[in-house]
């Protein structure tokens, strides 16, 4: 134990008493862009009132709500629909093109249709195969954001699914749920949304699922199939369609034969 005499106490504490306080004002947000933000706010309010409200409460949305119960996800099907529209447009354009032979027009249209079909099938298969790996990635992402381990998360989700299954079976016995319905085990996104009220993380995890579909379908539709199909189409065209008797030299032919530059 140390004991010191309190002499010269005032000098030692002068610094504490005369400490300068920080009295300056903190800078506020600038008001320069206020009229712009007000305009954006008002315009989005009008859009929400007269467009989104009418759209979400229209008979079209009622129809969609009834008939899309069995769909798990929607982003992939919408992308397929978009590519149907685009490839249909390209096919009709090639069939109406008067600068080409009628035989060549047919082959090009068939070529574009076949690429669409093959790429859709490929993308669905790859999307299904990548489910498990992407789920692991999302769990790692969630673990980093929640500051836990992946193993603890896995255990919690398993326990949560067991509880849900018990409730589901109880409801089936009572009769609230039909016997044909199957129990779907919840994944990390469902777990976070239902147990935690941290809404930003739930949104991000749903976004991860959307990102996966966008990446898979996007790369196959816009990168792999056009790049892989052009040399094959050229080879087929040169070998089978143009016999050496009827061969005519023409420049810039393959510019019309490149399918689907979307």
């Amino acid at each position, binding site marked *: 134990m140390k004991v010191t005499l309190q002499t010269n106490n005032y000098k030692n504490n002068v610094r504490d008493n005369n400490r300068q306080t920080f009295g300056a004002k903190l800078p506020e947000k600038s008001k320069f862009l206020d009229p712009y933000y007000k305009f954006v706010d008002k315009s989005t309010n009008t859009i929400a009132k007269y467009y989104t409200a009418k759209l*979400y409460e229209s008979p079209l949305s009622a129809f969609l709500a009834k008939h899309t119960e069995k769909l798990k996800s929607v982003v992939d099907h919408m992308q397929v629909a978009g590519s149907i529209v685009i490839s249909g447009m390209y096919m009709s354009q090639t069939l109406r093109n008067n600068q080409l032979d009628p035989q060549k027009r047919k082959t090009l249209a068939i070529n574009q249709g076949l690429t669409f079909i093959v790429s859709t099938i490929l993308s669905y298969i790859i999307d299904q195969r990548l489910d498990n790996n992407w789920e692991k990635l999302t769990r790692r992402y969630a673990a980093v954001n929640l500051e836990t381990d992946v193993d603890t998360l896995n255990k919690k989700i398993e326990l949560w699914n067991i509880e849900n299954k018990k409730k589901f079976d109880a409801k089936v016995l009572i009769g609230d749920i039909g016997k044909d319905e199957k129990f779907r085990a919840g994944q990390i996104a469902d777990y976070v949304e239902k147990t935690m009220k941290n809404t*930003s993380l739930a949104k991000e995890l749903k976004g991860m699922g*959307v990102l996966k579909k966008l990446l898979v379908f996007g790369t196959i539709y816009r990168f792999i199939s056009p790049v892989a199909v052009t040399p094959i189409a050229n080879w087929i065209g040169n070998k089978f369609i143009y016999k050496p008797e009827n061969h005519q030299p023409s420049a810039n032919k393959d510019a019309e034969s490149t399918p689907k530059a979307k």
Partner: protein
Amino acid sequence: MKVDSIKDYHILYKQYDSSTKEARNKSVNIVTGCESADKSVNTGYYRGSSISFGAAPKLSKGMKLLKKINTLCQDHKVIAQNLVALVLAVGFRPIAIISLPGKKNKDDKIYASGHSIASGLIGFIFSSIVMYPLGIAAKKYMKEVESIKDTLQEMVENKNIKTFSKKELLKGKEFIGENFLNIFGEFDKNGKLIKINRKTLERTTSILEMAPDTFVFGVAKAMLTVALIPPILKYVFGVEKHKEKVPVTDDKTKLEKKSTEEQKNITNYFSKVPSMKNFLGGVK
């Protein structure tokens, strides 16, 4: 008289063990000498405190970018779709097309890569300008939906409040109408509103959000891409697309050849006929 604080005492407490990660995370309270629970969160400035401050975890740059992309994917799906298309069409595809083997088709390759760059740019710019305000409006709409969900949950949990009408729920809401509850609401056996069906709501809203871009804007985008290809070819690749030269067909030469041959045959024939000798000119 000043007595120094008890903090300056050298208490015999457990030495700081830095061998394992678990031991490192177990902090010791200096005042009391007691071990605290595993506080891997509060390493650093607040080490040793028993309060967790709920601060945001330190994320690397990649994770922050991924966070932004995920929020974009969920809020503005169309813009995310076109962003993916932009990266592929402007970055990877031209390189892949030009690196394909074949020297004869150089012009075609350049045209195709110009087409892909134009389509990527136009798609992204067009859809981001048009769909961004629609996305913000949808966000505002969904905020009101979530407030309704919370009130419904409270009403169902507090079993004292048994009866509530739709009009009470929709009090003070600017955007939502009764039809919304009829479409997306789940009802009891007696016809009472229990909750809003989250999954159908998500599905239909995402379909309706993506529908304009897939079905309506495709034609406009295609026309704009075709218009944008020549400037890109000029300024990016330094190539101007010349008009196709009309190739000289073999038929013309054949005709010319045939005509001369035929003429020779005719003159030979008529020269042998005696009566025509007087008719034909030339040196006899």
